[in-house]
């Protein structure tokens, strides 16, 4: 039995941000994640935008936390050395109706949210972003928008919490949650039992199912799929290009990335299954058509990868951050939709203060907000190239494997180093990476997952197959 003060369920960007903020307090804290590595859900498959919330519903908790996060991001980016591009965003009007929507809806709403937008004339847009559709009529510039490395952010929150004494248990799925008066009992599928004074339910798409384990049916989560196309070409795309939104969707964006390429998407499709991460021919066509209207040159750019993510849409019209109906000691942090990355600094602070008040926690004096400067690691410059497409070296892979929070999957290593994410998609370097996982961490290639459990890249040893046949 593990006795902890606080147990966070879910190692996405929200759970990890909360874990980091909780590690400021004198408390024993732990996080449990069902996948072999953190950041395996919504946090790995999104547009990587740090959003100002200029278009959030005014007065909502979401709008409030997005506003608070705007203030918190600069120090988080600095302390955790997060790759970040302060690109700003351009919302483009292609029709007179678009111009009206900007005047009548976008500008007033942004003002209510405390975000100043700058009106731009056609000529100004074409001067600062010559790659956009020359038929643009006008638009607005949102200065505070930017892009970030979402994998780095999630990992760095968690790693920083571990450095400050938190514990993490990956590859363990929560099977039972029993809320009592002063504590919550939690059982995982490997038989581990936790007795926690308080449990934070940050299980993203599955947060409603965690609630149900405790007998709480007060909300549901529906998956909304967003498909994306990654292109390596950049064509000078230097700002986030936003369409004027429609009633149902913000539309298809063109977004620079900190990795050098450009992201096209997302779609917004309500789907039935929380595991439906498939891209579709229809989705890809919609993305290309959407991009064609705003950045025609990008519409035909060759893709090196496509992916889909699922946003966790809650049954209440705002973030669901409140105690469970099963008892005060289970705290839901659910329905975070697509703004979890953007709001994560404020979500972490807000939730940790709720926990502090509930448990009467006090601050510790020795909290270290900074991670050690990442690239100064002596491994970094050592070794030959492993990932040919991105010139990632053996030293960089070793540094990730010997990190305080080592990857628990091949995709986890990809998210930490960029290896296997280029044109060849790991087909050349994966064998070398299997060798390094085995040498350094003792992983058998038969059990090292690609992402989820049971996703090893190899299925058997050839000698065993020969023995069966012989």
């Amino acid at each position, binding site marked *: 039995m593990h006795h902890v003060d606080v147990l966070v369920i879910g190692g996405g960007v929200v759970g990890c941000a909360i874990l980091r903020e909780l590690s400021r307090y004198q408390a024993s804290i732990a996080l449990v994640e069902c996948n072999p590595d953190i950041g395996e859900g919504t946090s790995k498959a999104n547009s990587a935008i740090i959003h100002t919330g200029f278009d959030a519903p005014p007065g909502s908790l979401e709008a409030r936390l997005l506003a608070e996060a705007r203030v918190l991001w600069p120090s988080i980016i600095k302390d955790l050395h997060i790759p970040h591009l302060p690109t700003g965003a351009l919302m483009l009007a292609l029709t007179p109706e678009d111009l009206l929507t900007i005047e009548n809806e976008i500008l007033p709403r942004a003002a209510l949210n405390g975000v100043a937008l700058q009106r731009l004339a056609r000529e100004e847009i074409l001067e600062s972003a010559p790659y956009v559709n020359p038929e643009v009529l006008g638009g607005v510039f949102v200065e505070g928008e930017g892009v970030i490395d979402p994998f780095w952010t999630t990992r760095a929150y968690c790693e920083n919490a571990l450095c400050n004494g938190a514990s993490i248990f990956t590859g363990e799925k929560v099977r039972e949650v029993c809320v009592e008066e002063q504590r919550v009992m939690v059982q995982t599928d490997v038989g581990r039992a936790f007795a926690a004074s308080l449990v934070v339910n940050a299980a993203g798409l599955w947060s409603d199912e965690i609630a149900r384990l405790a007998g709480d049916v007060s909300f549901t989560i529906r998956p909304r799929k967003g498909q994306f196309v990654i292109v*390596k070409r950049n064509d000078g795309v230097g700002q986030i290009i936003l369409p004027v939104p429609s009633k149902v969707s913000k539309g298809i964006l063109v977004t620079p990335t900190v990795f050098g390429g450009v992201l096209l998407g997302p779609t917004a499709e309500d789907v039935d299954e929380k*595991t439906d*991460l*498939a*891209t*579709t*021919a229809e*989705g*890809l066509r919609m993305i290309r058509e959407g991009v064609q209207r705003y950045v025609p040159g990008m519409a035909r750019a*060759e*893709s*090196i*990868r*496509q*992916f889909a993510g699922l946003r966790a849409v809650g049954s209440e019209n705002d973030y669901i951050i409140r105690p469970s109906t099963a008892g005060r000691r289970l705290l839901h942090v659910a329905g975070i939709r697509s703004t979890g990355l953007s709001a994560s600094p404020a979500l972490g602070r807000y939730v940790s203060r709720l926990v502090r008040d509930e448990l009467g926690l006090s601050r510790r004096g020795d909290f270290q907000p900074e991670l050690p400067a990442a690239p100064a690691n002596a491994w970094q*410059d*050592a*070794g*030959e*190239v492993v990932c*040919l*497409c991105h*010139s990632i*070296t053996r030293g960089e892979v070793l540094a990730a494997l010997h990190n305080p929070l080592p990857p628990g999957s091949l995709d986890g290593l990809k998210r930490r180093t960029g290896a296997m994410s*280029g*044109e*060849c*998609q*790991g*087909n*050349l370097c*994966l*064998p070398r990476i*299997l*060798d390094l996982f085995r040498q350094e961490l003792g992983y058998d*290639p*038969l059990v090292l*997952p*690609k*992402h*989820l*459990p*049971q*996703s*090893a*890249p*190899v*299925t*058997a*040893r*050839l*000698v065993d*197959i*020969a023995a*069966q*046949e012989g």
Partner: protein
Amino acid sequence: MDKPYTLAIVGAGISALSALRAGLSSERTILLDYQENPGGFLRPALPAPGFEDYATLIQTSRLPGQLTACFNATAVGLAPAIDDGEPHTLLVRHRSGVERIRAYRLLLACGGLELTREQAQIPGSRPAGIMTPALAHQLLNRGYAPGQRIVVYGSSRYTLATARRLARAGLFVTLVHSPGLPDASILIDPSPSLNILPPAQLVSLAGFPRLERLTFSRTPGESFSLLADTLVYGTEMRANTGWLKSSGLALSEQGAIKVDQHYLTSVPGIYAIGTLVSPSLDHTDSLRMGREFAALFSEGSL
């Protein structure tokens, strides 16, 4: 700084070995390759029917004595000479760090990368069990089965060799021809353990976390599915020119290096041969270009 080389060869695959075999030599020559051994990405496929010429080349190739050969050494950048008569500079990363290697003439022969399912934009999930032939061969070489029920998709002799080798390892293999004319060698001597299906277009895949099903189509509106835990996607090659993006060398729309009839690129003193110039899963063009380049070089017509 060290004295510049007279010739630097980037890549020790088929085209470079073919050129060296045909007598390509220069006073001070350096040969660089990402891998630990010469032979290129096709080497793990050997021996295989249809590749006898390549196997012979590998078996009998001896690197010339005056040649400096560096393996596990990857060219990651190229800065062409600014003035005539000056050497070009290669940025090379090897075990102990980054080095600048200067050479008056460069022969780029660093081959290609296989087109992936992602670049082909085949819709569906992203499960374990999707790979190219190069990965399948490397896993086999390490003693592992990439899967149990494998579909190999493509029409080259390389794809066929891959399917045969997987079947020989005791795995259940179906070869589905990609649309277009299959390589002639595919039509002869099908291994009895190999199911071969006529050309069909791969339209989608499904399954998670491991691949479960592939859907193909032959005519619009009609489709059929195959159960498989592994897809070996081997339809095309692309030139390995990602590292040359900022070098100023002229590239085609598809990323291949543009050369003239003497294999000269858009920059004087820099030549390119093989898959880099003419992306193909077949190796015969690379063998030929290596020989032709060596002949031009020794004639002094470059």
